């Protein structure tokens, strides 16, 4: 993980109009809080010393899901060159939570940002070999041009925010 990769990731996200916070794990709660628009559904974060605000519903009903404004999930890794986040589908609900609400907040560790698609595929192959074999590469916001102009947020989120946890 080099500075270069992070700035590349940042530039790619900017081009995709995806907002972005870089934060130390110790300040992460604040950064996360600031990125959420309630009501929020989410998947617990697997990073040391980082947890979700208490207001985030991690065991939502279907009504909570449909009513949620934001879905927050950890992502397995990110690809700097294209601004892609790799969302794994688990029983904890990453797939619906990152897809249904209008806003998706993706949390990724700096050490999990890889430079390009080739490195992303290396990670993907390792995940598959370990049995984690359903992953979405999500890049930017859901989009369509089918209604006679480019519009974001058609079936998936119209806003995406990435929280990048700096390694110490």
């Amino acid at each position, binding site marked *: 993980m080099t500075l270069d990769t992070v700035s590349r990731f940042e530039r790619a996200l900017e081009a995709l109009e995806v907002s972005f916070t870089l934060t130390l794990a110790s300040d992460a709660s604040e950064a996360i809080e600031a990125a959420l628009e309630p009501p929020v559904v989410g*998947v617990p974060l*697997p990073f040391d010393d980082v947890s979700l605000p208490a207001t985030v519903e991690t065991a939502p009903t*279907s009504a909570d899901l*449909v009513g949620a404004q934001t879905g927050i999930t950890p992502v397995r890794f990110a690809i700097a060159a294209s601004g892609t986040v790799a969302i794994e589908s688990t029983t904890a609900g990453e797939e619906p939570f990152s897809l249904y609400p209008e806003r998706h907040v993706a949390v990724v560790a700096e050490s999990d940002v890889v430079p390009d698609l080739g490195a992303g595929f290396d990670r993907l192959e390792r995940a*598959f070999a370990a049995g984690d*074999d*359903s992953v979405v590469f999500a890049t930017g916001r859901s989009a369509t041009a089918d209604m*006679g102009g480019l519009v974001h947020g058609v079936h*998936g989120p119209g806003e995406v925010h990435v929280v990048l946890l700096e390694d110490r």
Partner: protein
Amino acid sequence: MADRTDDRSQTAARLRHLLSTEGEAIYANASTLNNRRAATYAATDTLEDRRATARAIKEDAIERLPELLETVREAVESNGGTVYLADDAADANRYVADVVVDSAAREPADDDTAVDAPSVVKSKSMTTEEIDLNDALEREGITVTETDLGEWVLQIADESPSHIVGPAMHLSRKEIADLLTEAFDPDERFETPEALTRFARDHLGERIREADVGITGANFVVAETGTIALVTNEGNARKCAVTPDTHVAIAGVEKLVPSISDLEPFVDLIAKSATGQSIAQYVTMLTPPTDSPTIDFDADEPIVPDSSDGKETGSARATGTTDRDFHLVLLDNGRMAMREDDQLRETLYCIRCGACSNSCVNFQSVGGHGFGGETYSGGIATGWEAGVHGQESAAEFNDLCTGCSRCVEACPVEIDIPWINTVVRDRHNRGADPAAADFLVDGLTPDAETGGLDLGKRFFGNVGTVARLASATAPVSNWLVGSTPVRAMLEQALGIDRRRDLPTFQRETLVDWFETRGGFAASKTRASEPGARHGDPKESKQRAAAGGPDREAILYPDVYTNFVDVDRGKAAVRTLEALGVPVRVPDLPESGRAPLSQGMVSTADRQASRLYAAVVEDLDAGRDLVVIEPSDLAAFHREYERLLPEASYETLAENSYEICEYVYGLVETGADAAVLQTGAGNEPIAYHSHCQQRTLGLEAPTTALLERCGYDPQTTSAECCGMAGSFGYKREFYEVSVDVGERVADEVGSAETVVASGTSCGDQLETLLERPVPHPIELLAPDD
């Protein structure tokens, strides 16, 4: 013959209608996508490697298909899903209908809606269009909702897709707004794309939540793991795949790739080629049944258990607790036979990105409703339709491919799309009614085709013979064909549109002129005059090869240069001599380009052998074959690979040059450009290269040469002039040709000087601009 005349006017009327109703929206969308694709390709250094890798993976996968089918069955079954190999459309439809009915029966019905019809939500899938799945399900009482916005619009409009990626590309914003306002009668009429999209999201979101079954296609299927790769921008495929408990994925058998790592080049290429995006919004690699929790939208229990932290909850699949049901339907429907067919097999490498449609000027004018068959559209549709629906479905639109070859460099898997079109045209020709009247041209045309071939095609395929005759009888032949009754006859019998100017044949051919002025001996003297400066094109950057400075050129007297546009041939001779290269202009056989364009492969094959036999001694003696007409050079460099033995093909391809490429090589290696007619510094000039010349990568040498000679050439962005040899003459295509040509004319119209490399391009532009459009060599050649 009357039948063919009627067919031609019907086709013309149908295309005219599309030009005026759908042409504008199609052009705006397809050309934008094409420009974006070209820009993204240009910015990707690894592009050619990626394309070669993708191609190799597909070749290998199709080769090993029977084995991969076994592998994927084992993988999906061990994951807990089911694989069904469907022979044809009816088989696939029956299976899917059964799955839907069963699945709906297992759902506890709502008290008040106990009679709900089983319901399906779908994401976009051309394969399900191919088998008419929606109709088949609806006949079983199943409600089907398309969730891709474009497909949904078409479902409401009850229309068929006009593009394999952008199915509703032919509709304008206003048409969509009117359609949906009418269908849903909202409080306020829909105006903006945002309002339409918001409504669609809510409406379709509900359908997805209620559905019994989600049906998706698959862009790729990974055999080893049973993984479905879905590439979308909207996110609807994700929703359809994981929201209902039952997921059915339908894919042609050709979608199988061996392992997960094989996806990489495709994930990289597919969005670039389809839309010019560096990657699609969502590339879902889903190995169903997934661990993702099922969601019962009628229940109010938590979707995930409260204690869940995602990482410690065991995989539902591993613990055997999944509520999910998954069916992978792999469709044959002619594909296994295509695999056995040496000519159609390549079609199976297609990843359905639509780049060939976007890069095609005829497609840009009429869209997939004109340039398409029952399901598929664009250049590659010929292969698909011939393979899955039969030759007839392909024959309908196949002639809209002019072989311009611009799609060849757009295709991410390097499919030779024009060749597939040529072969299918050839097969169609051979299958045509043998009782049709052939007497008119039989005997006159020494081709190698079977009876029954369309007379117009036979005429254009044998245009060399016609030109020879017309030249020998000029100017009488020109007066004759200029007369109204003869034009009417030509239109009736051969389908030559009477609005199109015919070429004026010259009594003195280029070959005759050259002999009269003293042949090779005189040329040698001229080339060694003090004014002439030597250079060596073989040392040029364009083509690195061994060779001494004493070049000799054979100038290829192609049909048009020899009989019609003799001046550009003379200009080429003078230029080469001035640069110190002696020239020979022997009477050489035709290249085979004309019969190839009509799908007359055996005639072309015979001509290729004759041409090679006629030049081989010169090539062996180290002489260079210099070609003015780009389409003939393209035959030598592209199609001859399929027509000649490998060594002969290589010899010819290595030693044949486009005229400006050759001249540029000369001036780059020491010849003095000052002997040419140079511009006054940065003299602006518009240059339309030739489509096939561009595909050979030979636009740049002409531009460089013009710059070198004091001009400031502006090249066109339109891929092709629309004339394309015989295409623009044909009655059924005349208006499409003019529509395409006008776009080029608009681009160059304001320039004082316009030059073009191809005869067709020159003719088309001269007609539309009403002024001379010479070949660049005529601009540069020294005066006699």
